[in-house]
């Protein structure tokens, strides 16, 4: 197995993919972050995107949303080409987007429900009058993410986990069939990580495809169908057991990398950072989790 994209064979009975990426490549200045990426995400499939920082994971999500152009290749999101020829709208309301859990400032003048409401009508121009149907939708989303008890508190005083649950509600506003998550678990404690993973997993079970960028695979390891591992300008795509092995990652990085099992956790040791590998500096244990 090398850098070729080994798509897991899909049975012909499966419905059409919610995301299709063909021959995608990304360049940053002179440097090619990756190229030749083919990826199909089926309905109900959860794919984790792993790799060192600077390997272009976030940019991949932004490209799918039409916020950043690829250097080469095409993307079809929910059956619609993303900004063909660089034209068309940026952003995509039919695709859900869950950002990193950056804590909001304490004095943010907004209550919990307002954070959810941004997903329902935050994009709408015109007089800011809340329609009844929108208010009902916000209530339904608040219930769906279990935020009833703190929905009317100012967001600034809520914990990171509570804020992130509200963001999940915001991302699910239009019941997206494709959900993109960018490090949704960072800076959350274990219980809240599990709560957010459960919400994402619940939504996946309704038949939505999920692409989840993370630096720590462990919180989602039990839920992931496939892993896209980007490193060193190359990538591996396959089931967790096939990708997260010492030989595969050693081959991918071109440097000795060890996947260790500690209880039910996986630890990747020796993986160099993306930038570092180009300057031939090696920091062992720099990326403690994969």
């Amino acid at each position, binding site marked *: 197995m090398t850098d070729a994209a080994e798509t897991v064979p899909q049975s012909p009975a499966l419905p059409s993919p919610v995301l299709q990426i063909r021959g995608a490549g990304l360049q940053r200045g002179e440097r090619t972050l990756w190229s030749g990426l083919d990826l199909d995400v089926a309905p109900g499939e959860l794919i984790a995107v792993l790799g060192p920082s600077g390997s272009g994971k976030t940019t991949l999500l932004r490209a799918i*949303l039409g*916020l950043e152009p690829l250097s080469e290749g095409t993307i079809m999101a929910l059956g619609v080409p993303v900004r063909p020829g660089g034209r068309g*709208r*940026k*952003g*995509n*309301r039919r*695709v859900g*987007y869950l*950002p990193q859990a950056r804590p*909001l400032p304490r*004095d*943010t*003048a*907004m*209550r919990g429900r*307002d*954070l959810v409401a*941004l*997903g329902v*009508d*935050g*994009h*709408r*121009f*015109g*007089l*800011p009058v809340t329609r009844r149907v929108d208010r009902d939708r916000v209530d339904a989303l608040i219930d769906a993410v279990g935020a009833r008890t703190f929905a*009317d508190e*100012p*967001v*600034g*005083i809520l914990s990171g986990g509570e804020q992130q649950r509200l*963001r999940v509600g*915001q*991302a699910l506003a239009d019941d997206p069939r494709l959900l*993109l998550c960018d490090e949704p678990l960072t800076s959350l404690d274990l219980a809240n990580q599990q709560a957010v993973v459960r919400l994402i997993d619940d939504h996946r079970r309704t038949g939505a495809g999920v692409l989840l960028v993370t630096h720590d695979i462990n919180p989602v390891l039990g839920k992931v169908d496939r892993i896209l591992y980007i490193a060193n300008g190359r990538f591996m795509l396959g089931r967790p057991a096939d990708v997260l092995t010492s030989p595969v990652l050693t081959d991918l990085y071109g440097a000795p990398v060890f996947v260790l099992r500690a209880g039910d956790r996986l630890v990747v040791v020796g993986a160099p950072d993306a930038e570092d590998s180009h300057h031939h500096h090696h920091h062992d244990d720099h990326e403690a989790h994969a």
Partner: protein
Amino acid sequence: MNWSDVGDAMFGGLADYGDILALVQNSIWAGAVLGLVGGLIGVFVMQRDMAFAVHGISELSFAGAAAALLFGYDVVTGSIVGSLVAAALIGWLGARARDRNSIIGVLMPFGLGLGILFLSLYDGRSANRFSLLTGQIVSVQNAQLGWLIAISAFVLVALLLIWRPLRFDSLDPQSAAARGVPTTAVSLGFMLLLGLAVAVAVHIIGALLVMALVVTPAAAAARVTSGTLALPLLSAGFGVVAAVGGILLAVMGTLPVSPYITTLSFAIYLVCRIVGGRRGRVTRLAR
């Protein structure tokens, strides 16, 4: 100056208060509309952390007005041109907060210096000179007052129309962009509206004191509420009370309007801080 002089300066006009009010009626209207607009736009100034930008825009607005005074153009037009140039520059060059602050820091003294140069070259009525820096709404002519009110009304309507996308972009630009909000256009639009509001405020309370109407009311309201509706309503209310109250108090005597407005505005802020502090944390007042 003894106490009776102070009394005269503050309340000397009390005997003719009815006549004075009739004379300054349009000024009061202009103050009310600007208070409303300043309070509303201030909510976003706070959320987007742009208090310093307000100051930067007002100094360039002052330079524009001073240039118009010197070269014989309309002063209101001059201040608007200065304001919009500053707002566009800051919006265009300073997308990120850190860039923005350094750009404002560079623009502000330049604008203020230009304005002072134009004013010292100007040999017309000296009363006009300092009114741009410290404001004197009651000396603005009626035709110009009409313009100030019309511009404020335009800003008010435009602000309401972009309210929700602007709020989304102010809180979480990444998610807003992902949801299809044209974030660049919304940000630039906001800067232009802010520029217009600041240009109006320069004429009412002066370039140096603009923040008393564009920042303080929102900062005060944020101490006591975080409701989506309560915050802008309260902030707008504070702005109107400070602006109109300041004019009403000032015309009783011979003192300028601005210190009244800034003092009222500050007093409201103090009260809100005490009330908000006593509650222990920011609490919502109403939905």
